[in-house]
């Protein structure tokens, strides 16, 4: 629409500021309506037609990841042999990720002491693997399973287990 530049004639009421009464630019109006219509369509598609939710989308992503990377055979933790190689592989993982809370000598700090006689979540090898994998979110320990992966969790748990048994 062409600008007519018609003066409103309010200037003396506006401290000398004059106003035109130009029409709304067509493209601006089209943008306004397009965004409103898009908003309606989006809401209907998301909640109505697709019947989706963030929970469903999350579960779908997890299932897809399971499909692609899952399927590794369950390891019988009770049967895992704690070899010197396994322990040695665990040491750098501990140094990199665990010392900030459990200290380099495992005597604890922010997190509990790992070389005293007390175990809050169990001191068997399988218990340690479980604690590292799931973390203790309520106390601030991360869920390390998805970060480290099962293999590194087994290695670092072997390191902790061996240190604990040397001490006691």
């Amino acid at each position, binding site marked *: 629409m062409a600008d007519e530049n018609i003066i409103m004639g309010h200037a003396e009421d506006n401290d000398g*500021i004059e106003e035109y009464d130009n029409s709304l630019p067509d493209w*601006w109006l089209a943008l306004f309506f397009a965004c409103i219509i898009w908003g309606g369509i989006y809401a209907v598609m998301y909640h109505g037609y697709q019947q989706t939710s963030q929970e469903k989308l999350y579960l779908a992503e997890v299932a897809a990841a399971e499909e692609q990377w899952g399927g590794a055979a369950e390891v019988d933790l009770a049967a895992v042999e704690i070899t010197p190689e396994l322990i040695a592989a665990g040491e750098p993982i501990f140094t990199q990720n665990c010392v900030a809370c459990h200290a380099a000598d495992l005597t604890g700090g922010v997190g509990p002491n790992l070389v005293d006689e007390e175990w809050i979540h169990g001191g068997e090898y399988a218990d340690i693997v479980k604690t590292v994998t799931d973390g203790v979110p309520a106390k601030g320990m991360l869920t390390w399973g998805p*970060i480290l992966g099962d293999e590194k969790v087994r290695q670092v748990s072997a390191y902790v287990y061996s240190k604990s048994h040397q001490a006691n």
Partner: protein
Amino acid sequence: MSSNQPVVYDDAIVKKFLGATLLWGVVGMLVGVILALQLAWWPANGDIPYITFGRLRPLHTNAVIFAFAGNAVFTAIYWSMQRLLKVRMWSDGLSNFHFWGWQAIIVSAAVTLPLGLTQAKEYAELIWPIDIAIAVVWVAFAINFFGTIHIRKIKHLYVAIWFYMSFVLTVPILHIVNNLSVPATLTRSYPIYTGMTDALVQWWYGHNAVAFFLTTPFLGLMYYFLPKAAERPVYSYRLSIIHFWALVCLYIWAGPHHLLYSALPDWAQTAGMVFSVMLIAPSWGGMLNGLLTLRGAWDRVRQDPILKFYVVGVSFYGMSTFEGPMMSIRAVNGLAHYTNWVVGHVHSGALGWNGMMTFGMIYWLVPRLWGRKMAKESWVGLHFWLATVGIIFYIIAMWAAGVTEGLMLRAIDPDSGLLLYTNFLDVVHTLDPFYWMRFGGGLMFLTGILMMFVNVFLTVRGSGEPFSAPAAAVPAAK
């Protein structure tokens, strides 16, 4: 309705608010630059608890939003509403109570926040006694504001006044509802809301603080000071009505976009997202009315640094009101949320829109208030370039940092399906160069406002050519 007695406007209150704007602007931005340095080089906190990042950051945001931008808006209101309504403020006593009360609140914020006294709600950190003081001072201001409208000599309310009204009415509602809490001690209280409700109320407040503290009153400022400086008619009265009502009706729903992918119910997340997208056109209505008002004055934009501030300010408004809705889209938010991209976004609004509009207003007002041209006229143009280039450095650094960070945090090793960057510190250190670049941009912006501070100080002290305002006539038709 005109009377023969000339109205004597209260310009002393305008001068006070203008001075406070400058002072708190320097303080707020200096603190910002210190924080930027701490992020790039943590020993900059000097191992002093009072100036560690967690305590200084809310001081920075409160100083820039409520002290710098707040005082700027009050300067604009006290100057322009008296002139638009052709009447002195209803009560000089309330004007001064408003001024001194507001400054006392800012000072108490500057004391309590470094001491670690906080409600831990973003942009609502101040503890409950200060919250009550804010409500009291605001009600005094509102009485004075609407009292002045009541006794006005001009029946017609110019568009700037509508925008100011939405600010004066909505801010106390947001403030009071979000801060409802049960005091436990003098410095501690518990919100009456719990869990997700608390978060939703907080972001209903938080986002509408952006809307009704940093957007609508600044649009009022634009509608008065931009056509005044450009000496051109406002492009479209019709557009100003439509975009005003669209803006105030839609903005109030957009808050949940701060809580996408949270425990907030999906339907509320969708509402926050689609209302944000619907806001693009109403926001751009303001930008269009600002830029198109300059039609026929582009030759003067080349010469006049005040108009340059306005062009860049309005352009940044248009840019950030497009960027914001994009970031509210679920998929984009999944990448952008919790990254420096958000920091860049708010600074293109605060530095680009609020900062530049305020600077343009101050350079226009100072000669009219003190009757002298700026003492260092060449510094005004220099300030403009420092500020503009500083913002550009800032937001480019934050875009790059935000996208880098977002992509690193979600990167997955294609062989194992595990996260690629398991150590958060690796991500942090990757951002170091961007943090230094942001520090540089912020330092430029700070240098600019320091130059303005000195310039205004010298002008007020009396070293400047005499200034007489040009005849008020605004050339109408082309």
